[in-house]
């Protein structure tokens, strides 16, 4: 059985202070609401985008942005 891994970005809302860097770094996945907090579109991050997403996670000044644990799924 072939399995692929897919991950999504997620936010620890207790940490997020709405700095907004994630929306600039991941414009395809995150937009900001009227209060400056991220709105996720829930898209899966492809393997090719993963390094970039990891960099965005490291850039979050509140350590609120995360990649969720990859879900093993049948291809």
């Amino acid at each position, binding site marked *: 059985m072939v399995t692929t891994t897919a991950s999504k970005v997620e936010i620890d809302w*207790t940490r997020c202070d709405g700095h907004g860097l994630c929306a600039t770094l991941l414009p395809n996945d995150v937009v900001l609401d009227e209060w400056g907090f991220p709105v996720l579109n829930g898209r899966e991050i492809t393997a090719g985008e993963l390094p970039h997403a990891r960099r965005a996670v490291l850039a979050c000044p509140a350590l609120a942005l995360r990649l969720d644990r990859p879900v093993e799924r049948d291809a």
Partner: protein
Amino acid sequence: MILQDARVQLRVIGEPRLLAGLDQGRADRQRHLFTHGAQPDLNREAYTQLAEAVGLRGRGGAAFPVALKLADLPAKGIEAVVVNGSESEPVSRKDRLLLTLAPHLVLDGATGLARALGAPHVLIAVHDAAAATSIREAIMERDDGLAIEVTDTPGRFVAGEARAVLSALEGGKAVPPGRRALPTRKGYHRRPTFLSNVETFAQLAVLARLGPKGYSSTGLISEPGTQLLTVDGAVERPGVVETPTGVPLEAVLQFSGAARGPVLLGGYHGKWLPETDGVYLQRPEVSAGIILALGTETCPLGEVHRVSQWLASQSAGQCGPCVFGLASLVDDFDRLVKGDPAGWHDAQRHLGLVPGRGACAHPDGSARFLASALEVFGEDVRLHLDGGGCGRPVLGVLPVPGGSW
């Protein structure tokens, strides 16, 4: 000592189970044993089978199947059984009533399960002073050979959330943590924990005695047994009612002498019902069992606006979308009540921005309550936006706790 809260009336439709033997007030150990008999010693497998056979669901609001919760616990190393008696829904009275009047039934359920699971600790989170006194007194009356601890938790709405309760029991702040972890895996001190609502444990104690067949002699086939409901608002006889599961809402309303008019089911995270005919009270819709009748004398949107203020005040203040979103919705409803169409439009947008964006379900539940109000009170919305308002005063039929919370 009289511990009974004089304001809370108990009533029963059908056969009393949880409320059996309470007509003279609190059941001490002797009266409890006289009414219910001794708690049978069951093992973990027996509890799982019982819970599965009758489809028992948690009675705290989320209505999670107890059998699944038991199955998710590891085979060994279960740290604690936690009784969540924080009952932070402002209208709900059933849990403090059980803790106050039938403490031994709750303790039987919790200690029986703790022994079956091999959990050394039983932790009881209580907010109400009379309930805490009664349960402490009950613990003195028995010898369970377990470490039973009663802890007072803060009464704020969000403090009643399962993981907030665990955090408070560990000595931390009573707020939900940012990471979603199941108590069955990482609960009390990050160890496997069985946590459920007070009524769930009382139901388990009754179930252990009656067995699946006896327990299923009343209520729905899909989820037999009884349930505790708290009825309040525009009713002649507010209080806690025990009924078989699946009874018609109309029966409970008539029984409580409710005025005609809209009904809120499931508390301030629940939904307004467009129609009370043909509604049967079962989980998950009935949630923690709160039924609020609004009547026809008061302004529905004004009432909802008052509750929205309270909901916004109950945010733990951790998550931006909850803090800003609920505050914006309070303002939107204020403008809507005053006849400003922009208030309605902003509310629609903000209701989409709040759910799913917090550490706990407070934003989701609050948005569900407010969205259902706009839907069910569409005619009132029109009257208010036409400029004249609905012509009714805001009477405060929906109870909102004062500053002490």
